[in-house]
């Protein structure tokens, strides 16, 4: 459902992605691992349509459509969801209001009826249980004053409400203690669906004990240098990333 071919992207004149190839099938879970600064977030943001990153070469198709010409909101309406590494605070806009506006704009795009207030609230209550989110956070401004863990849970909660077909989770595990990590991973697992693909971006393999990927990719210096099964993650845990860097002697 997602095909990335030779993707190059730069920011402020620096090339960050230097030819990424990636194929994600329907219902699959892919993990992208890599050292800090290797371009994982850049890839995630480019897929979500962040204009600050300039795509200089390559193509991306999603569900048979060309993705790169689409505006961020079109991608979202077509079912792409990015859980941000650093969720943005939006003072003055309540979580509930925000999610209702988001969900209704997606439903409208699909020709579905918009939710009324009562039905929407019932939906929120049900989906909140998935990530054990404190109901008090619903009426608070989006992410404002949330703890690191609450922000991450809120991202997965949004995913649960918006029901994307491709979810990209950018370091959703970072900053979570083991209990919170379990809750978040459980939430993601319960959202598994044969129609829903997930890209899990992570620095550590810890999360992959809970969200078990079908394929693991290693991104180093803007390129996917290796792909494999879940055992690749364990290997990385053991050996680190240095052996995969450009110019390193690759051997087993």
């Amino acid at each position, binding site marked *: 459902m997602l095909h990335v071919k030779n993707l190059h992207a730069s920011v402020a004149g620096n090339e960050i992605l230097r030819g990424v190839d990636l194929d994600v099938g329907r219902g699959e879970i892919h993990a992208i691992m890599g050292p800090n600064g290797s371009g994982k977030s850049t890839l995630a943001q480019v897929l979500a*349509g962040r204009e*600050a990153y300039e795509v200089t070469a390559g193509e991306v198709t999603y569900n048979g459509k060309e993705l790169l010409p689409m505006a961020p909101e079109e991608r979202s309406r077509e079912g792409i969801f990015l859980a941000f590494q650093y969720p943005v605070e939006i003072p003055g806009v309540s979580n509930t209001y925000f999610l209702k506006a988001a969900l209704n704009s997606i439903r409208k*795009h699909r020709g579905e009826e918009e939710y009324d207030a009562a039905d929407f609230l019932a939906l929120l209550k049900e989906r909140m249980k998935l990530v054990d989110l404190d109901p008090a956070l619903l009426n608070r401004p989006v992410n404002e004053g949330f703890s690191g863990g609450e922000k991450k849970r809120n991202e997965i909660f949004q995913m649960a409400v918006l029901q994307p077909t491709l979810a990209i989770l950018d370091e959703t595990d970072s900053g979570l203690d083991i209990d919170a990590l379990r809750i978040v991973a459980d939430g993601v697992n319960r959202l598994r669906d044969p129609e829903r693909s997930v890209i899990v971006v992570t620095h550590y393999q810890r999360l992959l004990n809970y969200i078990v990927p079908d394929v693991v990719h290693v991104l180093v210096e803007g390129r996917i240098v290796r792909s494999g099964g879940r055992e690749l993650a364990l290997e990385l845990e053991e050996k680190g990333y240095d052996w995969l860097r450009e110019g390193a002697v690759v051997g087993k």
Partner: protein
Amino acid sequence: MNRVSGIPRTPAEQVEWYVGHFKSFEKRLNGEASSDVHTLRRRALDRFSGLGFPGTRDEEWRYTNVSPFVSIPYEPVSEPGGRRVDGGGSPATKFLEGIAVRGLPGYRLVFLDGHFAPDLSRLPENGAHVRTLSGVISASEGVNGDLMGYLGRGAEKDRENPFTALNTAFLREGACIHLPENFHSDEPVYLLFHSTHRPEPHCSHPRNLIVAGPGSSVPIIEEYSGPGNQPYFTNSVTEIFAGRGSRVELDRFQHEGENAFHVSSLYITQEADSAVTVNSVSYGSAMARHNITAVLAGEEAECTLNGLTLTTGTQHIDNHTVIDHATPNCASHELYKAILEGSSRGVFNGKIFVRRDAQKTDAKQTNKALLLSDDATIDTKPQLEIFADDVRCTHGATVGQLDEEQIFYLRSRGLGPEDARDLLTNAFASDVLNRIHLEPLREHLQAILHVLLCKGRILAENE
């Protein structure tokens, strides 16, 4: 009639223009011309004549050039203008529906072109605590005599603002609210100053006196509105005396017509333990200057000034506030926000004095501007003059555009770019609007500003 004809171009002609108004005003006063009130007026006229209108070389008016406006030959209005009413029903009710906030309980005083409109107003039966100022002046004996003692006590301390002097010279009509000791009401007193459509440019000088007795509390609304496409000038002065332990919330909003010139000056005097909150929302007129001066004259007094301005096109709105901490243990909180579009201009000048004896003062001032276009500008100037040593005073000012990361976050959740910007702009404004306690008024303003913000954007995009 002894009036300058033509256009008052020079400073001397501008002064003469209003001196001419004063002479005809005086003739219609009959016996009142020998009263104490009239002495106050005459002195103010002299002061105005000496000061003249300000130029941009006056430090207080550096960013606000009033000269194109004060050279317009505004005429005084001896009879209120006609009421335009569409459709059937009682003309007065229909007219009111077109200009007033709906769903507000409590008393209402409506002034058209500076004249009281009894048929549009709703006053208490006994007439005790809410009256017209002209009514109080014409019966100024006994209790009223005490009340009259307050008149000018706050405004007369300001020796430098010619607009205040001009207002005092023509002081006659407006609202007089006098709350007896421990009087309490949740229902607002709603003051509506509306200018009507007239053939010639016109002016009015509304004057309000609010005296809150010890322990009393009431919400008050002041609204200024008028027709578009026509120049007119509103020059209002309001004085508030907040007695010991009283609580006053004043919500003011200014949405004069697009060619109007609006000056408002509010003088607040607070006694011990009193709490005064002023929420000012300003989005009308071609040029507006709002002055607020608060003197914290008794310990443990608390003053809160919140402001929101919204400007577009070539509009210019200037907020000048002065908070004078004259006694120890007082608190003041200021939050002023501005949203600017087009090539509009904003000014915020916030002075805070902390006198030598005013130890344990807690003063906080915040000013935030959101620039929605490249040509909009704001001049911000905090001025803290602190003569006491054991105080907490903070101020902060930010000027910026909408945050790109916030816009992207919203768009990544399916919101279109316009919706994302609207949501963020409304959120910026709601921070101030949410401080208005009167629900019907808050909702009224939220709805209006929502439309204005969206409309402004569409206009900007089509340019």
